């Protein structure tokens, strides 16, 4: 396993000078923080989508219990 320091390309738009620089520890920490936040956001999105799907399925089931046909439920919910 290598611990290679990530690099960034910086191009100065005014001079055209292009440099390849190693990330600073602050930038590495920020990158890791964004990765953690991104993963947390992804999990939260998935959980919200699952909760919404479960609520929809529950609602459809309750409509069926009330006696609505599948066509009527579909017309109301689009399901």
């Amino acid at each position, binding site marked *: 396993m290598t611990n290679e320091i*990530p690099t960034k390309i910086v191009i100065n738009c005014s001079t055209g000078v292009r440099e390849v620089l190693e*990330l600073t520890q602050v*930038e590495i920490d920020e990158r890791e923080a964004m990765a953690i936040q991104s993963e947390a956001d992804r999990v939260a999105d998935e959980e919200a989508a699952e909760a919404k799907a479960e609520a929809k399925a529950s609602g459809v089931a309750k409509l069926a219990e009330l006696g609505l046909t599948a066509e009527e439920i579909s017309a109301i919910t689009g399901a």
Partner: protein
Amino acid sequence: MQAIQTVTVGSGGASSIEFSSIPGTFTDLKLLVSARTTGTGQTWQLINVLPNGVTANRSQRYLAGLGSGVDNTSGNELQAWGSSASSTSNTFGSVAIYIPNYLSSVAKSLSIDSVTENNATAALQLLTAGFWNDTSAITSLELTLNSGNFAEHSTATLYGILAGSDGTTTVT
């Protein structure tokens, strides 16, 4: 529309690309990116968009097609997406970022379109309405990955767009 600078990623890859010292001589900015990353897992990988290298005060809402589903999400980020190493070999995602009035002393809006390339069902298309609630003029623009690198041959070109005296865009 005038090309300001182009970056092509070399054989070692790079975890981020930064356009620094952007001239304050244009009205709008447009950044076109052809991006493949070394990340694996999903066939796409997110690219953080950082005006002036800043993570604060960013927000977005996007509408996405996932190949076999849709998504509509908001959050405190500005994100573009490229093809990952799990995409079909030698394919690259395409990103277009438009920033009107980048020198403005009020908040800036960004439009970000991302399309990943993959010869399978799982590819991503996103239309993103972005917002950077900061009064600073944009003088640099950074694209970063949370892990891995931009793969060799990825490119990014920054364009400047100038409005004419009648307020319409000048084509040069």
